[in-house]
């Protein structure tokens, strides 16, 4: 069959995606594809321009389709060539450089450009923009802004929408003082209502950005370059540069000139086809469907799919029926989710609302007939995944409205992965569904990274990465393993944790290099070393052959490395209880070594920060206190409240329990950090319910033991393991739980992940009821491990390797 010519005008996010979708449907067999792209490169992720401007990503990181991609797929790309006109009678497209391309089918994907409001003084006499005036749409804009911004004093961004705020944040990066000038009465009018806008304003002002609301800019001041802005109230403000971000104007002129119907943009039908010409399609921001033009990417992905189904004839029934806009956005590091409309549309609409301005949190849901029609989450978007799905699918909401906004009480009622519908969207930047991810895993991609590479899920703003990881793990689990590497304990040794333990025991492997030699074909993998060292130490307490190069630097010098290569010193302070003499010693040492910062930590100890490597052993000697292990994947600390010692509410002696626990567990290595706490009563001042293990005293001389709690990167209330009636019993059960965790957790898996994965019932059965008959062995192993404890700071007197604490070696000549 003779191939047809497919010409695409516009090589941006929608155009390139449409072509990808066409190729995915076997379109390469049907079409000879040719693309015109105004910009002189392959397609890049426009969303990430904000990151390029603020310096968190480099230009090279944001390409979606580099030039090679076009070559590999046999696509002719006229990069840097603007399409000038479409000749519909003779069915060809003329490029500005004289290129002529004939088409059988044409796709217009010209996107949009920055909207320029009617302001005077924008241009010089030669009709060029005044130096210092910019828009923010392309990589080129980004570069120009960056270049000009260096060494400027004050910048203004006109427009307080998503784009304007991102531009403002980017500008801050260059050290300029930034103001945002907004016409409307509150920020982000499209997504937020007035109270949310006000909270966002306060949060942004805290970042040092000025916000001027209800300000109508009338003129850009300056003779030969920007010097300021004038407003309709007669006032002026001085600025060295101005970025205009007041919305977008679809690039539809080329379509209009050839007689296609254009209103706000090119009018298309449910097949994404121009209403005037069956051979011409339009997609992206230049297309208008059912009266709406979309300015975010997820609708474009849906459009591209329908277009591809239609143009290739793969699915003649495919139709586009508009998109419900539910997106997660990150503006200046502030998380928000916006669903549909920000305001009620009708008297029937029910509003559920929560405000906590001090914390920058705002939640509002608009509900009609028991279904979500709109909403805003600002500051805390914990419930966003569930709400976005309910909104998207129009599922009826549960009666308990409060539970819609918050996770109340113990284990979060998370929508389980199993229950989630296959078409639920996981990645909202690239529009990847649960079904697509699971399908990809089934096709053999069994690591989150491989799945992300293949589906592009997680490659936009990145906020869904953890959800993807969970989903991939879930989809991999319990099935025949085609690609077992996701289950290896460490990437460089092809064995799961139980297999690895067995092999080490059977072959008597006691050092990291022996493991590589025997189990990995002699190939050392740097990233696998610390995990192996940790495991071997657990398997061979006291016998493990320590190789210092297998340790992360923190564990080589027993201190935590800082951003400038210095280290921190945190001595042990069991239970947070110290003494004037100890404080004096710490103070003297800090003074003697000119420690740049002395700080009380969140773990009830004292942190001496910014210490030179060569000073570490000297300071340890002067301090004469054991290491607090604040740098290692080990037992860290057991916080305590004052308990019965002094507190009028205390019902249990929490401080001496914490001190005993620390004696028992100090220095114990484990798959990840272990942070414990004890509390003298259920008021729980030491936060024992959100610790890896915690003991809370209750009336009647009893202690409740909680495990798997967290309040760091994740927040999880610990599960109640058991209730006991003595310090000794607390120590025994916590110790046994920890040993079970040490033997069975994956490397770097905190107890909050472990307990959730194994389930508290199973853990309780093993640890409390001894269902597997291993309790005595666990106790004994732990005892052995704790007997092997040796304060690493003693290496101050006897370094373990040559030049262990030297940061720079002098030359001997």
């Amino acid at each position, binding site marked *: 069959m003779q191939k047809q010519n497919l010409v695409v005008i516009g090589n941006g996010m929608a155009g390139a995606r449409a072509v990808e979708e066409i190729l995915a449907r076997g379109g390469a067999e049907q079409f000879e594809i040719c693309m015109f792209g105004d910009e002189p490169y392959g397609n890049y992720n426009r969303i990430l321009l904000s990151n390029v401007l603020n310096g968190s990503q*480099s230009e*090279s990181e944001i390409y979606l389709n580099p030039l090679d991609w076009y070559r590999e797929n046999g696509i002719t790309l006229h990069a840097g060539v603007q399409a000038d006109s479409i000749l519909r009678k003779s069915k060809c497209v003329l490029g500005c450089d004289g290129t002529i391309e004939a088409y059988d089918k044409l796709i217009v994907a010209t996107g949009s450009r920055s909207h320029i409001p009617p302001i005077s003084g924008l241009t010089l006499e030669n009709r060029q923009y005044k130096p210092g005036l910019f828009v923010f749409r392309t990589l080129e804009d980004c570069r120009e802004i960056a270049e000009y911004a260096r060494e400027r004093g004050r910048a203004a961004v006109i427009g307080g929408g998503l784009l304007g705020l991102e531009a403002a944040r980017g500008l801050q990066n260059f050290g300029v003082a930034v103001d945002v000038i907004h016409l409307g009465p509150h920020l982000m009018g499209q997504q937020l209502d007035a109270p949310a806008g006000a909270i966002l304003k306060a949060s942004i002002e805290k970042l040092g950005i000025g916000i001027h609301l209800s300000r109508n800019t009338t003129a850009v001041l300056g003779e030969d370059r920007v010097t300021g802005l004038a407003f309709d109230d007669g006032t002026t403000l001085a600025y060295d540069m101005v970025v205009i971000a007041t919305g977008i104007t679809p690039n539809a002129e080329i379509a209009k000139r050839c007689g296609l119907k254009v209103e706000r943009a090119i009018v298309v039908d449910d097949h994404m086809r121009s209403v005037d010409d069956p051979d011409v399609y339009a997609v992206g921001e230049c297309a208008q469907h059912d009266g709406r033009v979309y300015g975010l990417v997820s609708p474009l992905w849906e459009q591209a799919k329908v277009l591809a189904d239609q143009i290739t004839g793969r699915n003649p029934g495919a139709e586009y029926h508009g998109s419900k806009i539910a997106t997660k956005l990150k503006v200046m590091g502030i998380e928000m989710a916006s669903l549909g409309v920000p305001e009620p549309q009708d008297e029937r609409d029910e509003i559920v609302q929560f405000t906590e301005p001090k914390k920058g949190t705002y939640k509002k849901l608009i509900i009609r007939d028991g279904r979500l029609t709109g909403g805003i989450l600002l500051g805390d978007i914990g419930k966003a995944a569930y709400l976005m799905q309910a909104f998207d699918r129009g599922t009826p909401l549960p009666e308990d409205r409060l539970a819609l906004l918050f996770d109340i009480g113990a284990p979060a009622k998370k929508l389980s992965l199993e229950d989630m519908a296959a078409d639920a969207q996981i990645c909202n930047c690239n529009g990847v569904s649960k079904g697509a991810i699971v399908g990809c895993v089934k096709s053999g991609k069994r690591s989150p990274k491989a799945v992300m590479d293949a589906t592009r899920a997680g490659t936009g703003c990145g906020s869904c990465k953890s959800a993807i990881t969970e989903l991939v793990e879930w989809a991999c689990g319990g099935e025949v393993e085609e690609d077992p590497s996701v289950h290896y304990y460490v990437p*460089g040794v092809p064995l799961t944790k139980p297999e690895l333990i067995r092999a080490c025991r059977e072959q008597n492997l006691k050092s990291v*290099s022996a493991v590589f030699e025997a189990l990995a074909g002699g*190939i*050392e*993998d*740097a*990233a*696998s*070393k*610390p995990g192996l060292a940790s495991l071997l130490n657990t398997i061979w307490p006291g016998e493990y052959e320590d*190789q*210092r*190069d*297998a340790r*992360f*630097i923190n564990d*080589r010098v027993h201190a935590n*490395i800082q*951003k*400038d*290569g210095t280290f921190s010193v945190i001595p042990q302070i069991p239970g947070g209880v110290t003494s004037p003499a100890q404080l004096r010693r710490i103070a003297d040492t800090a003074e003697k070594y000119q420690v740049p910062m002395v700080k009380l930590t969140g773990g009830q100890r004292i942190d001496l920060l910014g210490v030179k490597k060569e000073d570490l052993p000297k300071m340890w000697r002067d301090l004469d206190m054991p290491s607090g292990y604040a740098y290692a994947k080990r037992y860290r600390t057991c916080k305590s409240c004052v308990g019965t010692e002094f507190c009028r509410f205390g019902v249990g002696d929490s401080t001496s329990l914490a001190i005993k626990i620390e004696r028992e567990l100090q220095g114990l290595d484990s798959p990840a950090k272990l942070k414990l706490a004890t509390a003298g009563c259920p008021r729980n001042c030491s936060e024992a319910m959100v610790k890896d293990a915690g003991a809370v005293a209750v009336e009647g001389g009893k202690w409740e033991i909680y495990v798997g709690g967290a309040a760091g990167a994740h927040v999880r209330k610990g599960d109640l393991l058991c209730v006991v009636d003595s310090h000794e019993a607390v120590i025994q059960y916590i110790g046994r739980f920890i040993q079970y965790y040490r033997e069975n957790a994956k490397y770097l898996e905190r107890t909050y992940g472990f307990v959730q994965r194994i389930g508290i019932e199973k853990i309780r059965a093993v640890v409390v009821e001894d269902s597997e008959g291993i309790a005595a062995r666990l106790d004994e192993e732990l005892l052995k491990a704790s007997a092997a404890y040796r304060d690493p700071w003693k290496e101050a007197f006897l370094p373990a*390797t*040559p*030049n262990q604490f*030297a*940061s*720079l*070696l*002098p*030359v*001997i*000549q």
Partner: protein
Amino acid sequence: MTDTTTEIMVGPVDEIPLGEGRTFVVGDERVAVFRTRSGQLFAVQAECPHKRGPLADGLLGGTMLICPLHSWKFDLRSGDALMGDCGLRTYAVRVDESGQIVVSV
């Protein structure tokens, strides 16, 4: 411009434990010298091109080095970045008859 290289003796090879690195001042430059478990020596610039992490404090496995601060990865043989945007400057290094490390800068 023609580069002239000078050989500078920096110290005995056993100053560097197997599988680790140490930083030396060589002429006007700071150089990180690594000694792999199999006994090979490599010399590269001392600071990470990302945010100046001290590379001698990194994790070494075979000829792959991981920066201690944000885990950029490098191949010490070529200096190429295996993960990260930018590679490392490498220096010729050898051990002489008397067991001294000699770096060419």
